[in-house]
């Protein structure tokens, strides 16, 4: 594997951030610690400087606190209150949501490409559904589905799908429209049927767009799943842990959960990346400019 030219600058930036973390942490925590000392709270430390790393609800937790927090929340691995199992539940809801979103997204995209009347009648509302705080509908949707016996992970997956279908719809529609007019003309001269045009030209042409859309949709679906867990009664998942610790004001735990969900998001998008490489091996060898909307990470350095 080739070493990326980004590695050294990225490491430098990471080191700068880490080096700035300690002073920032002291700067943020010392006033809080001073106030706690002034009020005479029973703290296991003497000066504000010492206390800054030991506050129960710090503004920025110290690295030591974060480390301990990770230890507490990661182990034992199979505990129902530990991060691994909850993250797995959330990841499962996200992936199911993404698959549901893909089905709905394909339906709308094909409809929009095939019929301008369909586009005229529905596209404004598909866009509007995104300007609506979809998240607000989550609690109602869960109560509603619960009435008809749908409980547990499925409502969360549905909410995840609700947020994720939009990027897929737009991406697939763009991809299906992307073939060169010349290529479409060629299909016509070959007397290809509607179906053949789709199967042999439009679908293959939409693949690069599809995976870009999936990456965006994966993040959206994860947000949907987490919000659904927060705003509804749930017994498992990252969102439930966030809500619980927010209520208990356990700031360090919230930081740990936030960082873990960030890792989860990165892993899920990496999964899509890996699938992309597995399923479209020709894109790696071909010119990078194959898809106009390349994922940002590839496109960034070609300029």
């Amino acid at each position, binding site marked *: 594997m080739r070493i990326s*030219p980004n590695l050294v600058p990225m490491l430098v930036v990471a080191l700068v951030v880490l080096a700035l973390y300690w002073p920032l942490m002291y700067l943020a925590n010392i006033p809080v610690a001073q106030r706690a000392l002034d009020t005479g709270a029973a703290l296991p430390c003497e000066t504000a400087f010492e206390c800054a790393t030991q506050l129960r609800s710090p503004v920025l937790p110290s690295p030591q606190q974060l480390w301990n927090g990770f230890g507490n929340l990661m182990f034992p691995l199979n505990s129902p209150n530990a991060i691994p199992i909850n993250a797995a539940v959330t990841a499962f809801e996200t992936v199911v949501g993404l698959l549901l979103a893909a089905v709905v997204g394909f339906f709308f995209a094909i409809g929009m490409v095939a019929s301008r009347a369909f586009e005229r009648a529905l596209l404004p*509302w598909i866009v509007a559904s995104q*300007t609506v*705080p979809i*998240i607000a509908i989550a609690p109602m949707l869960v109560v509603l589905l619960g009435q008809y016996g749908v409980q547990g992970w499925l409502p969360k997956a549905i909410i995840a799908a609700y947020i994720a279908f939009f990027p897929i719809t737009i991406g697939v529609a763009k991809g299906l429209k992307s073939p060169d007019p010349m290529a479409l003309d060629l299909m016509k001269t070959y007397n290809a049927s509607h179906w053949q045009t789709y199967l042999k030209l439009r679908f293959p042409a939409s693949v690069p767009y599809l995976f870009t859309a999936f990456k965006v949709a994966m993040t959206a679906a*994860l947000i949907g799943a987490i919000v659904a867990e927060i705003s509804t009664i749930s017994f498992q998942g990252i969102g439930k842990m966030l809500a619980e610790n*927010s209520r208990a004001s356990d700031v360090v735990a919230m930081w740990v959960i936030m960082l873990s969900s*960030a890792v989860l998001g990165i892993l899920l998008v990496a999964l899509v990346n890996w699938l992309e490489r597995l399923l479209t091996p020709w894109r790696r060898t071909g010119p990078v400019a194959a898809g106009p909307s390349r994922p*940002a990470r590839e496109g960034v*350095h070609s300029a």
Partner: protein
Amino acid sequence: MSGLYRPSSYWTGWLLLGLGFGLLLWFIVAWWDQSEPASSTQKLLIGLGFLGVVWGIARVAQQFVDTPNPVIGFTPAALTLLALMVTAEALLRAYQVPPGLIPTPSRVLSTLLEVRDVLLQDAFQTVVLEALVGYLIGCSLGLITALLVSRYVFLERGLLPYATIFSSIPIVALAPVLVKMIGIDWPSKAVIVAVTVFFPMVVNTFRGLTEVSPLSLDLMRSYAAGEVQQYRWLRLPNALPFIFNALKLGTTLAMIGAIVGEFFGANGQGLGFRIQIEAGRFGFDIVWSAIIVASVIGIAWYGLVAWLERRLTGWHVSFR
């Protein structure tokens, strides 16, 4: 396709539409004060009415496909909304779904009128103080960062990969931490919004600033244009469509960020706070009213940015 319509198709569309709406409305009026579920014959009529409306819209929409006027071109979409509302009203009444579960559209509208003062105050807090302030801060910071990153290769290599990694992070998880850190008043939500809109802004603007045609760059060089001139006359205009893309995306993100932020603590005001409180009390008519207010504002905001985009980037290919 050509603008010539066969008269028969022209009339059957409107006929089906009228018939469908007639059936649905007739049922709603007939069942307005009833308290038991409708009979299966009546449910069948609702189904027929719905089919008629959908088929009618499908036909009628064909006539509007090539309309240049945006207001008239909106007719099929307006009909779709109307059809969904009327069908929902009819179905909810036919099955006598309790309003504590799903309120009928008419009920939501009357509640919206009743509680409009409270909701407008909430909207002021959520939209103006939280979403708008955060949006402006986040977008301007993103723009400045993108300018810096496009100018210095070291930053491009060291910072940009992080920006793309960060874009796959669920920002909601940040909300509770920030609310605890900054407090439950509106600034914490503004910060959440700013963080949410920042990364798309950086990534998009950077692409716009750097994906410049090499020929144009050569031309600038042969004119001996300075760095500032290059940005003023080539890179920034080239980036405008990308910037507006991020700005449009940001309007949605800002609304969602502000509302979700309020889920984790608010000072007794705000649309997200109202939605959470009322959903807990099964006051779903107020929840839907709040959603309507939020989405109308969201659509208006999006429309405003889209309008600005058309004014400022009318020369771009996608509008020609």
